[in-house]
């Protein structure tokens, strides 16, 4: 466990995050009181930055969960030290996604109608049901994973943290003897495995891409590849997050570099698959010469915000992370690997923005863009101040909560060390 002095030193970090989170909460408040007019959205550009961040975080959450199933279900046990990080990230990314999609509703206080007036033909309605199930799976899985360590901490730690651990065990007690503990741990892992197996199909359905892919009105989205791209890009973003987290906040032991490199390699793998899929989409779309389709690609590549593609998507989201994780000079350096992960995480935001907004900038009927001369009927979009503030503030809030959870919850499996130490002292 890190020393307590080390923990005290991170306070400015929490201060800045708390300030940003406060700005975000104010922005959300303004949006709830003033309504959707605080956004820069128009009637044709129906979805903007909030939806882009929503699919970013839902992809990150889905990807992190699937990554954890690689470890717990498919037996990549060499990465077990990343497992809890992945599930915790999945939970907090889901929180961010839900906040952002909630404030995007024209009537946020009616969100519950999705469950009471549920429409089975709507992909969005299914999505919400999936998120409900997913949240349950995620919370139980995370608890099962940590319960043995939590039970131990509940017995050994005093003060408010002890109280917190005692609360979080929900009355669960783990045997203190080694043999009994191992049985208890095996049971926990079985629960995690079963939840993972249940979770995989649910999450593949909840990959969010299908919301867009079924919209025949937007040729840019209307392809069978889109749901797959969403999944792969989600996996890439979560591998990038794990690379970043493990590089800078992982357990600094003899496995540190190996695990960070493993995560970076996974990230490179997913990024490469994503590049192949996106290249296929772009090239087929461009070759097809269907005006409504090709104009979207023109908008992405040479439109008003070309840097979202060239700098965000291509450079930061693809080239830099792949280079840092593969070049001989950087691939064995934990710092550069972590930076590559961060770069990919930011770059994938650009991927998500470019998946949502450009589909709206081409009018459905030629000339419709001149038929209505009103700012709220514009075929262009740049997020308003309140959209930026609420999005970045929500991210700060979730990063803050995640950091606190990361600091106080047992993120690594403590017991092997404990029994080892006990047997050595004997």
């Amino acid at each position, binding site marked *: 466990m890190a020393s307590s002095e080390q923990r005290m030193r991170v306070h400015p970090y929490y201060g800045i995050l708390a300030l940003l989170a406060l700005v975000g909460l104010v922005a959300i408040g303004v949006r709830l009181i003033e*309504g959707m007019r605080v956004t820069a959205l128009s009637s044709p550009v129906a979805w903007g930055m909030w939806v882009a961040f929503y699919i970013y975080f839902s992809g990150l959450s889905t990807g992190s969960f699937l990554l954890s199933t690689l470890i717990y279900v498919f037996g990549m046990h060499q990465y077990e030290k990343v497992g809890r990080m992945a599930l915790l990230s999945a939970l907090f990314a889901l929180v961010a996604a839900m906040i952002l999609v909630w404030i995007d509703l024209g009537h946020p206080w009616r969100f519950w109608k999705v469950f009471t007036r549920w429409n089975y033909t*709507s992909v969005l309605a299914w999505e919400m049901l999936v998120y409900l199930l997913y949240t349950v799976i995620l919370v139980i899985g995370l608890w099962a994973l940590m319960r043995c360590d939590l039970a131990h901490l509940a017995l050994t730690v005093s003060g408010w943290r002890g109280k917190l651990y005692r609360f979080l065990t929900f009355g669960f007690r783990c045997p203190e003897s080694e043999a009994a503990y191992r049985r208890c741990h095996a049971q926990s892992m079985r629960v995690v495995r079963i939840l993972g197996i249940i979770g995989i199909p649910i999450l593949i359905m909840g990959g969010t891409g299908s919301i867009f892919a079924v*919209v025949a009105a937007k040729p840019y989205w209307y392809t069978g590849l889109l749901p797959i791209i969403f999944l792969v890009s989600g996996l890439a973003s979560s591998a990038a997050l794990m690379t970043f987290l493990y590089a800078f906040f992982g357990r600094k032991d003899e496995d540190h570099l190996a695990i960070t490199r493993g995560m970076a390699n996974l990230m490179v793998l997913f990024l490469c698959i994503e590049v192949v899929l996106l290249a296929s989409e772009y090239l087929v779309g461009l070759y097809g010469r269907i005006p409504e389709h090709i104009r979207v690609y023109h908008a992405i590549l040479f439109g008003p915000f070309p840097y979202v593609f060239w700098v965000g998507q291509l450079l930061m989201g693809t080239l830099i992370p792949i280079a840092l994780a593969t070049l001989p000079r950087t691939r064995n350096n934990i710092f550069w690997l972590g930076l590559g992960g961060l770069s990919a995480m930011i770059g994938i935001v650009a991927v998500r923005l470019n998946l949502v907004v450009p589909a709206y900038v081409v009018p459905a*009927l*030629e000339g*419709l863009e001149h038929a209505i001369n009103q700012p*709220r009927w514009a075929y262009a979009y740049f997020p308003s101040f309140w959209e930026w503030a609420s999005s970045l503030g929500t991210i700060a809030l979730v990063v803050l909560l995640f950091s606190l959870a990361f600091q106080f919850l047992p993120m690594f499996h403590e017991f092997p060390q404990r029994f080892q130490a006990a047997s050595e002292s004997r």
Partner: protein
Amino acid sequence: MSTTALDRRTLLQRLAQFAALLFVGGGSAVRAKEPSQLDESSLPQLPPPQPDEDVLIRMMRDLQRALKKPVHERRWVMVIDLRKCVGCHACTIACIAENKLPPGVVYRPVIEEEIGEYPHVTRRFLPRPCLQCDHPPCVPVCPVHATWKRPDGIVVIDYEACIGCRYCITACPYEARSFDCGEHYSDGTPRRAEYDQSPSPEYGRQWERKGTRSPIGNARKCHFCLHRIEKGMLPQCVTSCIGRATFFGDANDPDSLVSELIAKPNVMRLKEELGTEPRVYYLV
């Protein structure tokens, strides 16, 4: 042990009953909104039929005949004669005035197209109301069943059920749906103008746009002026058309004007390839 099993079973039954109640409740709430009985005495009085009367009178006669039938036997369609449209945009404005539409919400824009190169130029005008598709892509995507196709073919929105997710706006291949984000035309002026405060009569209600109350925050669309139709009046865009280029009526009535018009070979519909089966026909 056996008692707990029984308890669990009872609990599950209760839960299932509750869930069923919720679903059925939601469904019946949707169905309860069907039109009320027609009061024939309230229909506008029309002069006796004449051989060369104005098409508006003829269409009102068609309309009243259709209203006497049960709702599922009516088949409302609109016909727009592009050869007669002069691009005056009166229908666009009349629609905004009728439905009290705010900035960014336009039910019936007129698209202007320029054909050829100067000086050999001609122009074409294409009014685009909601096409009230027979296979509307906007309806199945709604997560809360807030929009549906009525038996007479009009695609309507329940403003109080709509959560404002804008999936339907995204799904419409004609961009016939718009979003009411809560702006007013007189925003930024010293006083909110009267026309900005008058309630919208849509769906037979008086919708006051205040704060974040519906229809603010909702998807909105053309409904063929359903509130007027049910009172025996033609949609506002039909009434206001200076060139008599827009027609409305019941295609299920072989004697109606629209039935005559859409039986001709010079009829086209927008984006037929999508299989949406629009109910707005263009004469070219």
